[in-house]
């Protein structure tokens, strides 16, 4: 029997993967462990290797297609074996898994052990099932049902034009195109009409993408500004992921950014002392980033209310201190994660940060090195940037922006001195962290960097 090739789930947040390229054609023979295709997840590019040997019988997706996890991408088997003409959707193995977990839920022992939380979530899911009108009782033709499945349109939302309200294929298709054709306020429509603007191309800022007059006007401006020329590149891969994730973060988390200036004199001294030592040990030169990360880990330990995450309506206090390290790679922003920074010395921290930084730039980071972060550090100190408002890397709740170190006149004991100063910008999610604890954390951090000997305690 032909074996399924499916889209692997490579991280806990991965929902879809983008197929970047196939290494095999239909009809090619495939060995176990041979790379079949390359995918891009929300965090990473990776080659997917074959679990089976045989002939690649079928490819259901082409390059740039987005494929949900566990969905069948193709089949490997013996030449001539029958496989479905069109993509069969979720893989059999995954379905079995679901069935298994379904039946597990039915075990009374399990329910008792899992306690009330489990029961509540079960009730919730039952409620949601009830609130969805049953598709069985809707009058619809088989073709209409097929299109509704394919387009993921609940039939209950479609109005049927047939006898007794029977839904036909055309009704579903009309609904689909009405969904994709933008919803807009009457005024926006009027303005668009007057300006000869196609609403399809306008991004609405209202609820469910509803288009307001301002959106139409902005779009018009953008069109005018863009003109007709200019190179156009399809947004894909990491670029697309960054776009989605930053938008998501900015639109769900109320960002507040605090800044403070840090006198880096002592930190510079510390670095000078450690530089040769660590280079000898690891072959890498310690940078301020590692010192800052160490200080961040130290401060987070004192202020666990910043090392948090919002899950549903619960604030989760993270036990681990895993710091994301924003790295500018060629095709976009990558954030590899350094685990248990609080437990690591500067030497091993240096080695790990350097390795991960290189891996990120080379697009070689493994999925588990991209996940599990609790707080992120973004360092723009190599540019002429003093302060900025970093965007929180969700599901984390805070991010530290690091500016350049710049000599500035500072008043010390009534005299003006030039000191190497650096601005730290802390963005935090006000839903879960208030201003005062955030300020206390940032103050702690400032002090740790100004008196790095604290880090030894």
């Amino acid at each position, binding site marked *: 029997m032909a074996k399924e090739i499916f889209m692997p789930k490579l991280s806990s947040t991965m929902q879809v993967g983008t197929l970047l390229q196939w290494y095999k054609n239909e009809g090619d023979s495939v060995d176990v462990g041979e790379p079949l295709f390359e995918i891009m997840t929300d965090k990473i590019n990776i080659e997917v290797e074959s679990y089976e040997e045989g002939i690649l019988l079928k490819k259901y997706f082409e390059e740039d297609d987005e494929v949900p996890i566990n969905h069948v991408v193709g089949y490997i088997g013996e030449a001539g074996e029958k496989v479905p003409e069109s993509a069969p959707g979720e893989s059999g193995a995954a379905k079995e898994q679901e069935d298994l977990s379904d039946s597990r839920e039915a075990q009374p022992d399990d329910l008792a052990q899992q306690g009330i939380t489990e029961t509540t979530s079960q009730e919730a899911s039952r409620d949601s099932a009830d609130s969805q009108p049953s598709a069985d009782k809707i009058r619809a*033709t*088989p*073709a209409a*049902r*097929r299109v509704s499945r394919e387009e993921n349109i609940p039939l209950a939302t479609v109005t049927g034009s047939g*006898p007794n309200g029977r839904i*036909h*294929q*055309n009704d579903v298709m009309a609904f689909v195109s009405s969904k994709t054709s933008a919803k807009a306020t009457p005024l926006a429509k009027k303005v668009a009409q007057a300006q000869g603007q196609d609403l399809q191309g306008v991004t609405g800022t209202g609820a469910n993408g509803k288009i307001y007059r301002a959106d139409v006007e902005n779009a018009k401006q953008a069109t005018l500004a863009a003109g007709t020329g200019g190179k156009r590149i399809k947004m894909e891969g990491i670029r697309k992921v960054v776009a989605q994730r930053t938008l998501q973060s900015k639109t769900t988390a109320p960002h507040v950014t605090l800044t403070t200036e840090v006198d880096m004199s002592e930190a510079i001294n510390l670095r000078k002392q450690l530089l040769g030592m660590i280079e000898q040990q690891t072959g890498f030169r310690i940078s301020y980033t590692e010192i800052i990360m160490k200080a961040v880990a130290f401060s987070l330990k004192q202020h666990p209310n910043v090392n948090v995450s919002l899950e549903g309506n619960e604030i989760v206090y993270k036990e681990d201190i895993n710091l994301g390290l924003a790295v500018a790679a060629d095709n976009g922003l990558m954030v590899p994660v350094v685990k248990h920074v609080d437990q690591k010395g500067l030497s091993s921290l240096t080695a790990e940060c350097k390795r991960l930084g290189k891996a990120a730039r080379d697009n070689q980071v493994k999925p588990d090195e991209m996940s599990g972060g609790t707080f992120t550090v973004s360092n723009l100190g190599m540019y002429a940037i003093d302060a900025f408002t970093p965007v929180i890397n969700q599901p984390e709740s805070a991010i530290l922006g690091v500016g350049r170190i710049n000599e500035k006149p500072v008043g010390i004991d009534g005299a003006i001195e030039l000191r190497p100063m650096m601005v730290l910008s802390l963005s935090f999610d006000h839903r879960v962290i208030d201003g005062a604890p955030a300020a206390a954390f940032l103050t702690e951090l400032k002090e740790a960097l100004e008196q790095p000997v604290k880090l030894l305690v």
Partner: protein
Amino acid sequence: MRELTYLEAVREAMSQEMRQNEDVFILGEDIGVYGGAFGVTRGMIEEFGPERIRNTPISEAAISGTAVGAALTGMRPILELQFSDFMTIAMDNMVNQAAKIRYMYGGKGKVPMVLRTPAGSGTGAAAQHSQSLEAWMAHVPGLKVVQPSTAYDAKGLLKAAIDEDNPVIFYEHKLCYKTKSDVPEELYSIPLGQADIKREGSDVTIVATAIMVHKSLEAAVELEKEGISVEVIDPRTLVPLDTDTIIESVKKTSRLVVVHEAVKRGGFGGEIASVIAESEAFDYLDAPIKRLGGKAVPIPYNPELEKSAIPGVDDIVAAVKETLNHR
């Protein structure tokens, strides 16, 4: 190419086949100098003689069984049954003997015979000479059932039927006898089990048999005037049935109307509708399948009543519109 009538095409297929195959002969009532009830064998006894154009007593049970026995022992008989209604008398030999002998005997022996018979209403012959009972025969494993609608198909399918090593019931619709089409002079064979798309279209599929093919084509012309594009499929053989062609068509059009003259209740249209309902075409159906068939009534004598007992062009037009949700 020259035109032939359906009746001439049937005769030509038999004559040409008999000239080249000594084992083929015809038996039936009044097929000699009389030329058969509908004149299909007219002139054949003069060419082939009474040995091979065997005029029989009025004994449907005997001549059908004799055909079976002759076929089992090496001949290729063509049995003409004067009216398909008389199948009731020949039924035992076709159903209990011809259809089953090979299977009952564990794959030994074969019964290469053709039972040709005129079917259908429209001649005023009333209840015992106007029926369309093909669904009965299609139900029986071991028989093949052919229902040509045009002269071209009749000749090619009859040649294939004579060449078959299995018993074939070959229904000739009386009203088709006078229809004409281009028919090649040479002998040719149309494989049993190959439907013919008589007209291509995109909005609705009509599957029609025998005379209803012609009526459906007329309906298609009417509907085209209203911008409705109809595909007309003639299965040509009920057993074996070319399900692929029908399924593909329905996948294309999403709508199916099945038309036959035989009484709708228990008719072969139910089989075609079921084939679609069970197939991958189901998910493409955008309207309930519509069946048109004869009313559940013996065919009456009065010409107006006779006409209204079976589907007409108007009925087909209305059925197509109904599936298209044109109210």
